[in-house]
């Protein structure tokens, strides 16, 4: 028996015989398919990313020396903000049409399903940001080596943003003015990633070795991968019992 949501896609069978991995895969694929049916929603965070980056040369200074120095920070802050902006979508639709409650009732561990959802969110928002970053890197006059390191830090860092963000999205689910509250809760938790993300690029632009810092960011990623799904699964249960 397959359950069909509003979108007509099977969620996953409420049946012990479905392995956890295939359930995760089903959730992941479902989220991708739904998102691809609404390409505008995918494009919006990217447009936001580009626009925020555009504001800095216009608002502060278009000088090459300034942009080269501040570029990595500008790109990181813009990426952080656009991930933050897209987080509201992570659980919202599933919450509204009742899919989320079905997900919670599945026999498979909820935190793994949440992990699959967070990864899908990263593929839909974080990954496009990483792919777009080199273009914007050139526009803020970063050097080739710095751009490569920037993309690498974004590649490691944006999944952390999605994972931590899923906790905030789960906590604020169904609340009034959830968007502002979400930013308020999550931004302090993003600070370490931001610091190491920009710091690594700066070190690279000065020609210093960056292996250690990248490894530390990798450690952040592992930590977020292991802990964040538990917290957001707990938060989801709380938010659902509330409504």
């Amino acid at each position, binding site marked *: 028996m397959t359950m069909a949501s509003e979108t007509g896609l099977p969620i996953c069978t409420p049946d012990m015989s479905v392995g956890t991995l295939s359930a995760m895969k089903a959730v992941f694929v479902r989220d991708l398919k739904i998102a691809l049916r609404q390409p505008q929603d995918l494009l919006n965070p990217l447009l936001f990313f580009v626009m925020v980056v555009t504001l800095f040369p216009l608002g502060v200074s278009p000088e090459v020396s300034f942009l080269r120095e501040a570029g990595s920070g500008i790109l990181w802050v813009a990426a952080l903000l656009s991930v933050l902006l897209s987080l509201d979508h992570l659980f919202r639709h599933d919450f509204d049409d009742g899919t989320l409650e079905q997900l919670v009732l599945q026999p498979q561990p909820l935190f793994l399903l949440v992990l699959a959802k967070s990864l899908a969110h990263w593929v839909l928002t974080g990954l496009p940001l990483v792919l777009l970053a080199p273009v914007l890197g050139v526009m803020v006059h970063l050097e080739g080596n710095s751009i490569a390191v920037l993309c690498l830090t974004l590649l490691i860092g944006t999944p952390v943003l999605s994972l931590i963000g899923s*906790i905030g999205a789960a*906590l*604020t689910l169904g*609340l*009034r*003015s959830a968007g502002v*509250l979400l930013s*308020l*809760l999550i*931004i*302090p*938790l993003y*600070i*370490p990633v931001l*610091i*190491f993300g920009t*710091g690594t690029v*700066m*070190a690279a632009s000065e020609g210093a070795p960056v292996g250690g810092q990248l490894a530390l960011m990798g450690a*952040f990623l592992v*930590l977020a991968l292991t*802990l964040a799904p538990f*917290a957001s699964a*707990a*938060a989801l249960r*709380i*938010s659902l*019992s*509330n409504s």
Partner: protein
Amino acid sequence: MWQIFHKLGSPKWFFGIASALMPWLLGIGVALFMTGIVWGLVFAPQDYLQGNSYRIIFIHVPSAFLAQSVYIMMAVAALVTLVWRMKLADVFVRSAAPVGAVLTFLALFTGAVWGKPTWGTWWIWDARLTSMLILLFLYFGVMALGAAISDEKSSARAVAVLVLVGVVNIPIIKYSVEWWNTLHQPATFKLTEKPSMPAEMWVPLLLSVLGLYLIFGWLACLRMQTDILAREGRTRWVKELVQARGN
């Protein structure tokens, strides 16, 4: 042992204990704190490097110390809320958060004012000040989430999850801010770190830290009692208590 634990969870029992403790907490706390700062202000010798401005230490360090340990206490209470569903633990988290936020702000403010004569500027993105600022954001987040969810039970548990997520992040934030600081400015003069502080300085400091701890205890008890009165308004013992009391 378990009986004590269950008793601890009972608001009525806590109310009685808190009422008995509060005069002591306030009296001893104020006495210790005032002794500490009067000693520090009037009798402690002048610092050879910073002159008299170092006398801010006697309120800066207690505030900063309390600001951090209040968050840790809240995290312990949050764990208790999630594991044992103890109502009293949530009452503590809710009552302590605004006090913690005020103390964090005070630590920031006194740090900034101290920075003026020491560094020649009101604000420096110093590692300690910056991580204090982030701690203040965490406190605000906890308070905002608690206010946003109207249902008492889910509010308690959601806040508990947030506090725990925050406490996991505090060491990471502290470490990364320190690393960031060394990246941007090579070892500046640190406010509170002294190779060797004479006893005339650290004894009053210790007194004021202890005193502020007790004053916080009093304030937390007071606020928890208020919260209990509001939540348990329908129970018999609260009704009797309210009737018996003059004010």
